């Protein structure tokens, strides 16, 4: 445990005009850790994720990331090109709607290979092999490599987005409702796949969701958000099985049992 944190967040807040979206958020994320962020719609969890992921400048506070060259550095203190390089090489972002992240007019293999090319890969054979390998890892039929994602089902598109995100081997992945909008059976398969990949690759991840079953399966730690504040944080099963805050108790007791 001598290793330092990969990400450190201090006093992070964001306002939209007079509306406080998130306020005074602080935590550390260590290599290989998966943090779940839960809360209902409007609790500020997506705003928080965007601030963490370098997509939205916070109004207050700092996001420090362990840069390979310079150690813990303020993400918003980097120049625009430096931040873009970081987001492209070290980080990944998985959105709820894969159609926002995929290019629908180029092939599935092209979507995955493009990420490799952006990061400097030039050999066609190596790029195609890399793409094929990742389609296999996310359990997509490799005979569909030349098909456009528009011809894929929602679950297949989501798996393609995950392949596209992970092919460059990021150290930290942000996920916004990765299983939202999918059928239950497709969700289970995707969760199982994510669980395996996160474990095998030793990824660090921050997953925003309103689904407590998703975080129980994927997250080591949990942050419960309400009205922009982190009302409870801790080990995932501890927060879910022994919730201390009134709002967490409400969340946990509101889940319907099938």
């Amino acid at each position, binding site marked *: 445990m001598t290793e330092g944190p990969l990400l450190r967040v201090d006093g992070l807040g964001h306002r939209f005009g007079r509306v406080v979206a998130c306020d005074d958020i602080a935590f550390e994320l260590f290599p290989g850790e998966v943090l779940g962020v839960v809360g209902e719609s409007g609790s500020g969890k997506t705003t928080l994720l965007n601030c963490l992921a370098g997509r939205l400048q916070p109004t207050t506070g700092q996001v420090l990331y362990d840069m390979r060259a310079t150690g813990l550095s303020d993400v918003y203190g980097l120049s625009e090109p430096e931040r873009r390089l970081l987001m492209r090489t070290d980080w990944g972002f998985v959105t709820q709607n894969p159609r926002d992240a995929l290019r629908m007019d180029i092939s599935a293999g092209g979507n995955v290979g493009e990420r490799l090319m952006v990061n400097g890969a030039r050999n066609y054979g190596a790029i195609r092999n890399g793409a094929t390998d990742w389609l296999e890892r996310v359990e997509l039929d490799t005979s569909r490599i030349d098909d456009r994602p528009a011809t894929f089902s929602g679950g297949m598109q989501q798996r393609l987005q995950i392949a596209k995100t992970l092919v460059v081997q990021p150290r930290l992945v942000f996920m916004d409702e990765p299983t939202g909008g999918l059928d239950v059976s497709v969700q289970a398969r995707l969760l199982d796949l994510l669980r395996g990949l996160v474990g095998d690759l030793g990824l660090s991840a921050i997953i925003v969701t309103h689904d407590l079953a998703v975080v129980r399966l994927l997250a080591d730690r949990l942050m419960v958000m309400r009205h922009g504040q982190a009302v409870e944080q801790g*080990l995932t099963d501890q927060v879910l099985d022994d919730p201390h*805050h009134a709002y967490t108790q409400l969340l946990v007791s509101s889940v319907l049992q099938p």
Partner: protein
Amino acid sequence: MTQMIRLEDLAKTFVLHLQGRTELPVFENLDLTVEQGECLALTGPSGAGKSTLLRSLCGNYLPDRGRALIRHDGEMLDLVAAPPRAILTARRLTLGYVSQFLRVIPRIPTVDIVAEPAVTLGMERDAARTKAAALLSRLNIGAELHALAPATFSGGEQQRVNVARGFIVNYPILLLDEPTASLDAANRDVVVDLILEARERGAAIVGIFHDEAVRKRVADRTFDLLPQQAAA
């Protein structure tokens, strides 16, 4: 003798915010030690806090006061104060926990569920599967079931999958919440043997055993919990 578990002045009260902030005190001023190679049975009437104490010993429940120390990696780790990643590491290396209910992960074959703790500790996947299959067979889960996900198994079969998962690794500390509930006599005997073997190799064991015959066979001593008065 090496101390493996030491509880100091431990207290736990549940506060039910949604029910008028009702306070349910479970235990307080709890002091207790468990040595290497010792099996302690928690006793007391239903509702006295036996499961709550056991869950506090693996970091699943968070006590309000006191210390819950376990020997992990040569040092005493306080589960009340430790950060999540320290507790996760302790669970991987030190703490085995067998609950009454199996939390099923969709789609994963029984043999892999049982093998997982060993794989996590670095055992080759094939070797871990072989070991898992042997343990399952010893617990009378037939080979034809090993490749199936346990979602459709009977209560007794799921219980035995849980037991196998808890015993595939030689954890220094074992926490057993009614490991023989819903088992027939033959399977109960297998579980008793597993517990005795673990004790023999030096594991510190804390368990809840409602079956008195089982308790007498495995436990060196008992710790009696008394129900606390609820204060509204």
